[in-house]
């Protein structure tokens, strides 16, 4: 019998090692897997590269991971916000590296990794600072920038329900990066509000098929 569920968030993150690249789902705090991040802080892995849309809000979740100084580099689209003071302080002190990526390029680079593509030509960013030094090409009269996939060792995501095979459904706009990060990481760990019995999820409504999920934990 295959059962991908683990008992605790601590068990789920136990394998995350120093220097790992970790995708973390969420748009702001919607969809942020807060309990998995708390467990990662307790686990103590350092020198992490984090992929997220933002760079932490307030004092909890990703912001707390930054404050604990576990993050060497962050790849994101929108770090600066009204409540991103933990990131702002580290950035101004030169203690964190930032790779700023337009949001759609972040999404398609993550999808490229999950899909096994070598790179993508994207129109976004052409002619701007964020494309400086990058290869470009004109295709059918439009200009594109070559962007490489973003893959990860681990993805930490949040879903609403999951079953022991790892099939997931999400809740409202908390879905955001979860499905595409799940496909792009070697090991995807999902925290869910509820683990349901196999067959309880309507197969027509499964959003992330279990093949993309290695572990799940109810929190």
């Amino acid at each position, binding site marked *: 019998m295959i059962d991908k569920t683990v008992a605790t968030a601590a068990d789920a993150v136990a394998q995350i090692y120093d220097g790992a690249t970790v995708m973390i789902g969420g748009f702001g705090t919607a969809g942020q897997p807060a309990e998995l991040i708390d467990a990662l802080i307790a686990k103590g892995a350092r020198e992490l590269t984090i992929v997220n849309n933002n760079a932490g809000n307030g004092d909890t979740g990703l912001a707390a991971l930054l404050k604990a100084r576990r993050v060497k580099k962050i790849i994101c689209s929108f770090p600066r916000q009204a409540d991103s003071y933990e990131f702002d302080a580290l950035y101004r002190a030169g203690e964190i590296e930032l790779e700023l990526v337009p949001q759609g390029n972040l999404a398609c680079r993550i999808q490229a990794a999950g899909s096994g593509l070598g790179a993508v030509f994207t129109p976004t960013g*052409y002619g701007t600072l964020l494309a400086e030094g990058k290869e470009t090409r004109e295709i059918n009269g439009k200009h594109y920038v070559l962007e490489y996939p973003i893959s990860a060792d681990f993805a930490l995501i949040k879903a609403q329900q999951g079953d022991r095979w790892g099939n997931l459904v999400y809740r*409202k706009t908390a879905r955001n990066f979860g499905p595409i990060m799940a496909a792009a990481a070697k090991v995807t760990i999902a925290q869910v509000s509820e683990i349901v019995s196999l067959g309880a999820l309507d197969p027509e409504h499964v959003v992330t098929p279990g093949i993309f999920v290695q572990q799940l934990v109810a929190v």
Partner: protein
Amino acid sequence: MTYQPLSRDQLAARVARDIPEGSYVNLGIGLPTRIANFLDPEKEIFLHSENGLLGMGPAPAPGAEDPELINAGKEFVTLLTGGCYFHHGDSFTMMRGGHIDICVLGAFQIAANGDLANWHTGAADAIPAVGGAMDLAVGARKVFVTTDHVTKKGEPKIVERCSYPLTSVGCVDRIYTDLAVIDVTPQGLQVQEMVVGITREQLQALTGATLQFSANCQ
């Protein structure tokens, strides 16, 4: 001549008049978001928010906020009957694949050739953040910009060449300011409307690029 610039609400209402029923529309953060308040409730218009929803409704009643139902500005919103949720890959497929009919963005500067600068002042101590601005600017079928005609210091925001870092090249179709509605055309900037009381000369003096005027702009 004396004239009265449009208020923020008047400007939002003016843009709203140009959004036809059935359009798929993304309203950027800030002033563009306000346009939603002025859309004709008799028209079915699909509002898209890039964090993953179509059919976005107004803010919820106090007490009914759901932290997992937010818009791209991370404000609490609602979903209209018939609306739906999707992940970021699908959301940016809608944006970059030419499926969004109209996006409305704010601006630091707009150039005569339609270049847009709205994400970064270029200041050395600024922490850059871009979000979905570049994707919207490059991907929507029509890109509208709403902005004050000049900066708080009185400097033109419509210029020959942007001095701020670009968001996208040649992307703007129409500019709605508190003084005028201006189309960006291959022949240059074409003023379609001006507020009552302003002259062509006054508007030109507040603009950093050459304007052409439609016949009805006297």
